[in-house]
Structure formats: C-alpha cells, structure tokens
C-alpha cells in the first residue's frame, strides 16, 4: 500500500461532524413507539359471530399452524362444524394467506405484534374476538 497525499479524501469525511447538529433519528423504543401502520400483519383476530368453521384457513396453511378446536363460546349458527381456528405461533409466518381465503372475512390480522415470553408453550394463540 503506497501513501499519497489526498487532501480532499482526508478532509471531506470530516463533514460527518455536521451530524452533531442534527436531531437524532432514534426511536427511543419503550417510551416512544412508532405509529402502527394500517394493514400491518400482526396477531390474528376472528369474529366469532361470522366464523363458519369451514377450515379453509387450515387447508391453505402450508405451515400446519392452524388447529380447529371446540371452545366454550357462542358460535355462529351457520358454523357447521362448531369449531374455530387456533393458531400456533411456533409455526405461523404471518403470510396472511388464511385471511385471504376466509369466506366470511372473519379472520383478520391486527396491528399488534408483541409477544415475549420465557415459556415456549405460550405460543398457542386464540384469535381475539373483534
């Protein structure tokens, strides 16, 4: 490696010092939260009054993440199997194919996505009813 005087190359990087006078772009996470985006693919929600228990979501899921289970709840009277989906978040990839194929459009994704736990068995998720 040979050394040559390169005045521009030596001085121009110093322009980075200008950043001292700029506002930081940091999002101070736990206190300041970024605005959630409309249509973000987060947790599932399922309107029980609309769900017809057709298991289309289970069929399209390539990760085998959806179980159709019976719970103690009031079903839609059109719900022919009286089952509703439960999602295993140890499998899900949030591709939202399940919401695309849902005939009554009851399964949806919401903006919330935070789930941190030290127990790996906490990842079976019952979609919120809303």
């Amino acid at each position: 490696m040979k050394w040559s005087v390169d005045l521009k190359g030596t001085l121009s990087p110093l322009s980075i010092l200008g950043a001292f006078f700029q506002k930081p772009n940091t999002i101070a996470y736990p206190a300041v939260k970024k605005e959630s985006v409309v249509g973000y693919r987060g947790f599932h929600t399922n309107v029980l009054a609309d769900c017809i228990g057709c298991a289309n979501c289970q069929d399209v899921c390539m990760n085998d993440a959806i179980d159709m289970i019976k719970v103690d709840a009031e079903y839609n009277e059109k719900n022919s199997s009286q089952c509703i989906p439960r999602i295993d978040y140890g499998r899900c990839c949030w591709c939202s194919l399940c919401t695309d194929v849902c005939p009554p459009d009851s399964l949806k994704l919401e903006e919330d996505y935070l789930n941190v736990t030290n127990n790996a068995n906490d990842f079976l998720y019952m979609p919120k009813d809303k």
Partner: protein
Amino acid sequence: MEEGFLLEQKTLEGDLNSETSHQSSVDFLMNWFRKRSIFVLAYGTGCGAIEMPPTFTSRYDAERLGIRGAATPRQADVIIVSGYCSYKTLRRIIRTYEQMSNPKYVLALGSCTVNGGMYWDSYNTIKKLEDYLPVDMYVNGCMPRPESILEGFIELQKEIGAGKASSWQKYEENHEFYRKNQEAVLGEKVEPSYEADWYLYEGGL
C-alpha cells in the same frame, strides 16, 4: 415528557422495587451490574440476523439500554439464536455457547425456535430449540421486528435483575439431558467436547 438519558434510566429501573425482597444485597448488586451491561455475541445464525443491524444501530439504538455487540464468545453474555437452526449451525452454536463464560443467556427469535416455524417439515433444521439449549426468552415473530427484539431484551433484563434468569445453571445441572439430545441429532459425539472446568468440579463456580 422526559427525554434522552433519563428516560432510559427509568425504563431500566422501573422494576427495581418490586422484586428485591428475596435477594441479598450482594446478589442484588451483581444482578444490577449484569443487567446494565449486556454484550451480545455477533453471530447471525439465521434470518433474524437481518433485523439485528437496525436494532443495534442508530434507528433503534439498543446501546441506550446497555446492550451492545461483542465479537468473541468469551466476552459475550447473550447469544441470539435468530430463527431456524440447521444441524450444521447447531453444532457451532453449542460449541460457541459452551465457550461463553457464565452468566450467559440465550435469546430465541421467531417461530422457528418454538415449533419449527416455516421449516417444520425440513430435514435439516431442528424444531424445538429448548431440547438442545436452555432458552431464557422467546420473541414472537417471523421475523421479529426490532421493537420485538428490544422488548425481548428488556424482559430479559428484568429477569436478570430479579435473579430469575439462570438458564446456564440449568444447562450445567441437566447437562446429560442436553448432550443426549444434541448427540441424537448430530451423530455419535459432539466434537470437540468443551466440558470446561465448571462441569467437572463439584458445585461449579
């Protein structure tokens, strides 16, 4: 609203008063030191590694919370298993994990570490990380956002501060169980065997 340094301090100290009753003051002090300086091993084991740069650089700036990268396992406190883990990587992760000095913690990102995730039917990835390494914290997502990763670190810090995160002790105690599982997927023997001093001496440290 408070801003900057004070705000981060508050986040870190928010849980101070709640969990201290059962700790002696030495323990409390040790845990306080530990949770305030978390060095994360620079090892991107899977997809989730792509969200690590935003977490550690200026946008989300994990260093505000005392979290920063470390180049070698000897200096690191936390190893992040960022998603799926093929057999070949698992061997390296085990080796790296055993080289890290106590106390050490494992943070698992994404669906793949919980129940196989997208690669549940793949012939070359493990499905449940907890069979092979003790995991302190799981973070939800495929892949988790930087906010989720930060949240995982904050929860981990809380557990460390309360003296609850002790997975490395679990690894020592159940070493045979973990070794058996590891060798079942990796072949006959996990080479090289890093049965360091704390495995051999009774009582560990």
